[in-house]
């Protein structure tokens, strides 16, 4: 079932064209990742999807009653506690006070909000505030869930929990769209990837070109939790690290700074 459809959508702010002739369809059960450089128009597409922005040309058709949105930055100055805030959000969604409370505590527990649910919102760290922002979006199972860089600021545990939550939400029939810079996250979460380049939806693809680094270890580096690394293989004395082309320079520098030897750097075929 089609949940959102953007037809020939263009968006201008003054004379600046943000999007040009974007056609995009998002179906129920899909996990769409929007990738692209900063300023390419990803957030604008998300805002158009949820109705926070209006297209300068073209049309946006939305077939969803329960829509949830997680903005790219969530810094609340509210004196309300996280649990009270979520109860209010649940009540606004139409949940009963009890359901809103139970559901918010369940989500905060799953996302492992440190410091407790009674911490005032304005005292939460960026990562914890992000967990609350995610929880408010999932209180009532949405039909359309839109998230702008939802993994930003999350710790490793919450990282994988969010991935699970998004997959579950899509499996329940929601259409999910998100932006993300980490290729590993996009690869492991999305069922479809769209790339925006200067406001144009130029390609639909599963993965970018990859680079394989063959390294000889020295000082310890935790490649398994490196944000850009897609795969780590240990072969005898060596380590092979796979990551998206364009993001391999930083990894290479990390290896050299830790005294690792580089045996080879080679491009490999993408999926």
């Amino acid at each position: 079932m089609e949940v959102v459809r953007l037809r020939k959508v263009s968006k201008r702010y003054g004379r600046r064209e943000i999007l040009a002739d974007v056609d995009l369809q998002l179906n129920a059960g899909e996990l769409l990742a929007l990738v692209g450089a900063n300023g390419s128009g990803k957030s604008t597409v998300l805002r158009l999807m949820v109705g926070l922005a209006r297209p300068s040309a073209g049309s946006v058709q939305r077939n969803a009653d329960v829509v949830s949105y997680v903005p790219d930055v969530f810094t609340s100055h509210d004196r309300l506690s996280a649990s009270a805030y979520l109860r209010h959000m649940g009540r606004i969604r139409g949940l009963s006070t009890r359901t809103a409370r139970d559901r918010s505590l369940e989500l905060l527990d799953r996302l492992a909000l440190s410091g407790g649910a009674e911490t005032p919102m304005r005292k939460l760290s960026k990562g914890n505030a992000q967990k609350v922002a995610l929880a408010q979006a999932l209180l009532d199972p949405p039909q359309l869930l839109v998230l702008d860089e939802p993994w930003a600021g999350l710790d490793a545990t919450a990282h994988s929990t969010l991935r699970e939550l998004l997959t579950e939400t899509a499996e329940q029939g929601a259409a999910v769209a998100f932006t993300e810079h980490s290729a590993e996250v996009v690869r492991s979460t999305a069922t479809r990837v769209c790339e925006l380049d200067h406001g144009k939806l130029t390609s639909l693809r599963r993965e970018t070109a990859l680079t394989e680094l063959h390294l000889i270890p020295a000082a310890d580096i935790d490649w398994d939790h490196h944000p850009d690394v897609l795969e780590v293989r240990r072969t005898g004395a060596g380590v092979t690290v796979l990551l998206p082309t364009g993001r391999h320079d930083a990894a290479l520098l990390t290896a050299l700074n830790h005294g690792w030897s580089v045996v080879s750097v080679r491009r490999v075929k993408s999926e």
Partner: protein
Amino acid sequence: MSALYRYLLTSVLLSQRYLPPTLIFLAAMAVGTTSDNGPLQSSYSFCVLAMLVCTTWLTVSIVNHEDPTQRKITLVMIGSSLRVLTMTVAVVITWCVPLLVIGLVYPIVTGKHVVTAADLAVGAAAQLGAAMIGIAIGLLCSRLVIPRIGVAMLTAAVAILAVLLLRWISPIRPIMTVLSDEKSAAANAVPLTLLAALSAILLAAAVLATKLLADRKE
């Protein structure tokens, strides 16, 4: 909708943003109406001025209090910026109710006046009218319309002066004129009720204008 109202009201109460305009209102009451022995309607005329300034400030404070990112979340949840704005106005009006009661009662308690029910009705209508015009000015000078706080404050000050000095741009000047004439409260009740009704229409227009101007930015 009532859940949104409760959330906005709780958030505002916890923020204490209402305190400065409220304290200014109370200070103005104390300075302007204490020990006043003249006609009660003249005291209410001063209350109208205090209410206008206070509600403008209160509205700007309350509308600007909501975090822009939280506002986006709320807008997506509710699905209508007009509903969210209407609830915000409802919160401001709620806070105006105790101010209106203070504005009605304080001059009576601290001064020496002969009080009739018509006096109270006239005072309530006049202050309600002023509150609604103050809210209208506050909405149009809030961050939703004017993002730069310095420009917004200046605009609000000019707007308040304009409605006080110019007769035909709002009901404020006519309200003050009616309150300061020599007629009885019973005779002034009808024109002040009509002026309060006109203020309500202007407030509704300001809500719509604010919605359209805020939506245009997106």
